[in-house]
């Protein structure tokens, strides 16, 4: 059995002349190949009056190119059982493809074509726009979506992309035209900040030759690659918003603060602290209290996002509206414990054992490996990061974890958003 943990001796890293970084790892145990990557094209580069354009443009790239009609493109993809998606988040435009290994050249060719040469046919753009508006209207009635949206608005400055999000509004989406999408593509799609990872039953030299052929000549001097954002301040009081949605039977709670970016030194200790708080076992300490002991919720967990800028560190729970205050109180108790008391050595040992022991499982699939390769490159972690991971986790101390908790959390300063039926009393 080969070493299941990728490292510098079995990851090929190649930089094309236009700056695109290509990472390849061969895996002949599977019959498929996964191609995944991202470039500087997310909502951060939008004009706010066109909010949602990054997302709509990404979707619309798949509706025909200068070389292929919509029909031809999708017949080629689906006839071979391939998949190809392009999507935009807050910072990046991402593309993900999967195929049987024998079809890799076709997949790469299609991917290059949709990224470089989309034509945005008006009739398809109108259909995609209608879909996006319908999807947004649906989400405006979705408790989870609305609680998160309120949380982001409470937590981040109004001119920060975390505040605005990437979905746009009904107003901005309605105003977008095919010309707008084409212009956004012309400006923002290019090799800037682009990383591509290919993992599967393919030879590295073949991958590199195909990628060079497809993307090697791509240039775009207009592409904005400046990811800078306003500073995010630590919250200094409780910020609360309730969103009432008629006809719902459960309330969604999001309680949190701005967490670390993936570049910050205390990201790793913070993520281990989060693991103790709301992940280990059945949702960590939060799950033990809110779900297992009190039976208040089917889910109550915490997550830490990291990312290019300070993503949220938040607790998410779904509870009966009559139990919102009890659940919020219990969540606060666990957060205060994490701030004020050092994590027990047993809890720390548990989380370390889990995070290190689960590494092979995280890396079992081609998708899992590819996602990790992208992160190694995007966050400058080094090709041997995964092999050093266990030592790094095992070296963490209780003090480092508590310091990370105290860095981001204060007992009486957080954002709290609740979406669901009308509440009878206070939420906190």
């Amino acid at each position: 059995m080969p070493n299941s943990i990728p490292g510098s001796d079995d990851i090929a890293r190649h930089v094309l002349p236009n700056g695109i970084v290509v990472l390849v790892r061969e895996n002949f145990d599977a019959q498929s190949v996964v191609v995944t990557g991202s470039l500087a094209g997310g909502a951060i580069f939008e004009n706010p009056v066109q909010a949602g354009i990054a997302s709509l443009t990404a979707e619309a790239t798949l509706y025909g190119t200068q070389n292929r009609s919509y029909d031809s493109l999708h017949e080629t993809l689906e006839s071979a059982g391939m998949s190809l998606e392009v999507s935009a988040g807050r910072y990046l435009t991402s593309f993900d493809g999967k195929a049987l290994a024998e079809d890799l050249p076709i997949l790469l060719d299609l991917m290059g074509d949709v990224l470089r040469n989309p034509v945005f046919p008006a009739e398809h753009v109108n259909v995609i726009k209608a879909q996006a508006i319908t999807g947004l209207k649906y989400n405006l009635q979705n408790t989870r979506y609305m609680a998160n949206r309120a949380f982001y608005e409470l937590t981040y400055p109004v001119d920060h992309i975390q505040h605005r999000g990437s979905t746009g509004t009904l107003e901005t989406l309605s105003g977008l035209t095919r010309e707008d999408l084409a212009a956004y593509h012309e400006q923002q799609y290019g090799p800037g900040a682009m990383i591509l990872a290919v993992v599967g039953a393919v030879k590295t030299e073949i991958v590199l030759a195909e990628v060079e052929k497809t993307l090697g000549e791509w240039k775009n001097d207009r592409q904005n690659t400046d990811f800078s954002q306003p500073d995010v301040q630590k919250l200094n009081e409780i910020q609360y918003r309730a969103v009432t949605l008629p006809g719902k039977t459960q309330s969604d709670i999001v309680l949190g603060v701005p967490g670390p970016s993936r570049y910050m030194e205390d990201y790793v200790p913070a993520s281990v602290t989060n693991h103790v708080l709301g992940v280990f076992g059945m949702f960590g300490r939060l799950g033990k209290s809110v779900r297992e002991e009190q039976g208040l919720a089917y889910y109550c967990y915490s997550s830490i996002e990291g990312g290019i800028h300070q993503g949220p560190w938040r607790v998410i729970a779904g509870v009966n509206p009559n139990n919102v205050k009890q659940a919020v109180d219990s969540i606060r108790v666990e957060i205060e414990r994490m701030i004020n008391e050092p994590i027990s050595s047993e809890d720390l040992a548990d989380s370390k054992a889990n995070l290190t022991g689960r590494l092979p499982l995280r890396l079992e699939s081609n998708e899992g490996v590819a996602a990790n390769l992208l992160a190694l490159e995007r966050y400058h972690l080094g090709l041997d990061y995964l092999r050093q991971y266990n030592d790094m986790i095992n070296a963490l101390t209780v003090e480092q974890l508590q310091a990370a908790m105290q860095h981001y959390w204060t007992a009486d300063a957080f954002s709290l958003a609740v979406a669901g039926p009308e509440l009878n009393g206070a939420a906190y």
Partner: protein
Amino acid sequence: MTVLRRMGSGHEVTRHVLENGLVVLLKEVHSAPLISFWVFYRVGSRNEQTGQTGVSHWVEHMMFKGTPRYPAGVLDREIDRNGGIWNAQTSFDYTAYYETLPADRIDLAIEAEADRMVNALFDPEETESERTVIISERQGSENSPMFWLNEEVQGMAFRVHPYHHTIIGDMADLETMTRDDLYHHYRRYYAPNNAIVVVVGAFASAEMLEKVKAVYGGIHPGDAPPPVVRKEPPQMGERRVNVERPGSTAFIEVMYRAPAVSNPDWFAFAALDSILGGPSGPGGGNIDNKTSRLYRGVVETGIAASASGHLYMTSDPFGYTITLAVNDDRTLEEAEAALDAVLDGLKTNPITQKELDKAKKQAKAAFAYATEGVTGQAYWLGYAEMLDSYTLFTDFVSRLEAVTLEQVQQVAEQYLRPSQRTLGRFIPQMENEAHA
């Protein structure tokens, strides 16, 4: 008794039956140092009576609430401490539990699953605490319009057979079932002669079989569980139901009667499903459906925001569903007409060999994707064995490849008749905006 079968990458699946009736499926996969260990029980919502709907799913939750050997919470910690994952799922026809662990830790799963096959506590306090968790799970689903619509359509499509009710169960039953109801259900269905063990991963089969025999061989078989006898009578005409609730998006869900997976028609129906709405068999979720007839007919035309079909794999005849989310500026009537036009088109514009060939290639690719991880492989082997035979999965591609154009056309004509469907419409009641 041992049977060998090859699959996918050339590894053999071996099937064994222990003296107590426990079926054991083993497949070696040495691409990663992992093993996935599953136990399937032949019990699901199909085995439930009115008054106890949802009991199988609630029992599944109680299986995580401890035994004398592993009190509540201990295994959560142990599995996680050992770098593994574990979970469970309840379906119409089965309840399944699994652990995927580093290969050298798999004994923990083997021991734990054997222990809770017979020793789950069902502590009364834990039962009450879990009642509110289960109700919360249902209420979380109720926040989605599609949950209400699906519950109504399924309930109307099946009047007699227990497929009538949803897996989560009716709120009335979740509020009133007792600890003893749960425990009796557990004792009746959880026994080696009503279970299948599936192990996939980095092990030597002979050694693994001995381990399983040593731990499970001594468990006494139970009485044969009662058969499900309430067959659904033939449907005599289209059934329709409206669900009217607050919301902004209209939906249509249509359920056609469909054959059990053991019926020879099933694979032709799977090809039809792929042609109509994109593949939904093993690994099918990885492949888009923009060239499917449904997408072209109702999404590309701007009438629906999404369209999908799903053919269920079930023990007894169940359903083929088509779901549409209607675009904001279009009506339910337009969507229904467009859907009917697609289905009528099966007669006026018969399925072509090219479409069938595409469905077969998609199945081949999707199957390859589904067999890449040990957890997914173990799931599909167990699921298929639970319904009929694990060869349903190992032979999935070859059986689909054997389907002819005539068979697909015949299945379309036989099953997709308006008289054999239940059509549900979610009618959003107000154009309401959330308010803060």
